[in-house]
Every structure is written in structure tokens, then in C-alpha cells.
């Protein structure tokens, strides 16, 4: 199982209830596809790398701007103008040399993305718009891969895990009026709030990947940074959902062949 160095490194994990060497090894062998390396993505990638997740695909075509620095803590002033995914890989490798990082800095590189999705048991959506979230949700449904999605603007953070494998709800089931959704650009963002949203994603991802606990699939966790209240809502599967009721999952397709 774990060697002496690994045992020492992850000793505080091993002290946790329900967490043992098998759970740590599952993290070390896990592969995750992460869309977006901004405010949410910096948090999730750091937490997963530090915890020992073995392989991460970082997908982001964005470059670092000075306005990113208050909340995107993997980046420094010297990184401005460089690709987020590539700088993140450098910083994360310094933190965790045992992790393999794959960078995709062109969203149009669909072949590379889909090749990773077929071997990745979890998608984490850390993007910053409703449009991208709907597209990533459609990918998760199509590939039948669990998805952990979060968002933050102003003082509000939300996070939800979806699992198409158990025919639960998907991100599109509530049929939100996406044209009116608020982004950080319009509403601002308080950096601890996006950090909390990212760490909720990391909490769910690490619990799931280690096998110690499944997330409550379809539960929307809602945090209000103005009163520090955390609330929970259920998203139900919508038989008329514009995404999961229309898309044939690759698994279904395989069965039908």
C-alpha cells in the first residue's frame, strides 16, 4: 500500500473516520477533468493536488489578468498575460510532483477533451458563465460522467453534484432563465465567497473519489456570505428537461447497438 513517505504525507487523512490507506490510494489513482482555472478552478485544483489526486486535466483558454489576482491564488503579478492552465500546472507540480497534469488551452480541441473524458470518472465545472455550464452539463450527460458544478457572484456561492449514471437530475433540469444570470463581471465577487464555492466542490470531489462518501446528488448547496448562512435545496429530475430528456447517453447508445 502506501510507502513510508506517502504514509507520513497523508497521515492526517488516515486519522479521519472512514478514511484508510485504500481511500488514499483511490485518490492517488483518480483522474479528474476540470473545466476552468479561474477563481473556482484555482481552489479545486489546489485542494485536489494537495490531497494526492493522481491525474488532472486542466481546460482553460484564458490568460491571467490583474483583476484575477485577488481571488485566483495560484497566480502572481509576474504571470499576467500567460495561459492560466499552464501557469497553474507549474504551481501545482511544485505542490504535488506525483500528479500528472494535462493542459488544454484551446476550447476547440474537442478531440483532446473527449479523449480525456472517456477515461475520467469525474468532471468539475469551474467556469464562469451559464452558457459554458450548460455545455459542460450536456457533455457530462452524454458521456454519463458525474459532474460537480459550482458558481459564485457577489456574496452568493452555490455548489451541486449531479450523477447521470443514476438517472438523477442534471444542471439544466430547473430550466433557469439563463439569459438573466449574473456573473462576477456584472455583480463583482468577494474572494472568500468563490473560495468557499470551490472548496465545497473539492469536499464533494475528494469524498467521492476516495470512496468515503457520495455527495447528495442533486442537492443545491447555497451559501450567503452576508449572513454566513448555508442552505440546501433539492433539484428534481425534470422529465421535460431540455438536456437530459433529449440527450442519448453514450451508455444508452452502446446498449442500443
Amino acid at each position, binding site marked *: 500500500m502506501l510507502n513510508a513517505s506517502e504514509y507520513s504525507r497523508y497521515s492526517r487523512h488516515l486519522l479521519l473516520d472512514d478514511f484508510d490507506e485504500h481511500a488514499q490510494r483511490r485518490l492517488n489513482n483518480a483522474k479528474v477533468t476540470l473545466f476552468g482555472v479561474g*477563481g473556482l478552478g484555482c481552489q479545486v485544483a489546489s485542494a485536489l493536488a494537495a490531497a494526492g489526486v493522481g491525474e488532472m486535466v486542466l481546460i482553460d483558454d484564458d490568460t491571467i489578468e490583474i483583476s484575477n489576482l485577488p481571488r485566483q491564488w495560484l497566480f502572481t503579478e509576474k504571470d499576467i498575460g500567460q495561459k492560466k492552465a499552464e501557469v497553474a500546472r507549474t504551481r501545482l507540480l511544485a505542490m504535488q510532483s506525483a500528479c500528472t497534469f494535462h493542459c488544454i488551452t484551446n476550447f476547440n480541441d474537442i478531440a483532446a477533451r473527449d479523449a480525456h473524458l472517456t477515461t475520467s470518472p469525474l468532471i468539475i465545472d469551474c467556469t464562469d458563465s451559464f452558457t459554458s455550464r450548460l455545455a459542460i452539463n450536456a457533455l457530462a450527460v452524454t458521456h454519463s460522467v458525474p459532474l460537480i458544478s459550482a458558481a459564485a457572484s457577489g456574496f452568493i456561492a452555490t455548489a451541486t453534484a449531479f450523477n447521470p449514471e443514476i438517472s438523477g437530475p442534471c444542471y439544466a433540469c430547473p430550466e433557469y432563465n439563463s439569459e438573466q*444570470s449574473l456573473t462576477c*463581471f456584472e455583480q463583482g465577487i468577494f474572494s472568500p465567497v468563490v473560495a468557499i464555492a470551490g472548496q465545497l466542490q473539492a469536499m464533494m470531489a475528494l469524498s467521492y473519489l476516495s470512496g468515503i462518501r457520495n455527495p447528495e446528488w442533486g442537492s443545491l448547496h447555497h451559501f450567503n456570505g452576508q449572513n454566513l448562512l448555508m442552505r440546501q435545496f433539492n433539484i428534481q429530475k425534470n422529465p421535460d428537461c431540455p438536456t437530459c430528456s433529449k440527450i442519448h447517453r453514450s451508455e444508452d447508445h452502446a446498449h442500443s447497438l
Partner: protein
Amino acid sequence: MRIHCNDEQLEVPEDCSLVSIIQRFNEQEGALAVAVNQTIIPTSRWQLQTLEEGDVVDIFTLVAGG
């Protein structure tokens, strides 16, 4: 009958629809998520959803940044 909406107690007619409550509270900017008794109601069902005595309605703005 009485319902609760965003921590306020409201006196509403017996046949009160969810959409009428949303319109009353819809002064916020942006897309809305609406829950009845902690369950998110799809937007296409707001019109048909009726409320019952003691229901708890939560209306909040959907965020999409990250």
C-alpha cells in the same frame, strides 16, 4: 391561508399560484431560482404550481460567475 416566503409570513388566497408570489418578490435583478419546501421548481412549472397552507417558498438570484 398563510405561507412563508423568503423568511416573511404572507397571507394569501386559497388558490394562490406560485407565479403570483414570484411576481410579488421579483424585484431582484437576474435569473431566479424558486423552491417550494426546499425543492427547486422548474421555470416551466411556475405557472401551474399551486401553494398550500404552511408552504415555504424561497426565491433567490441564480449566480453563474466563477
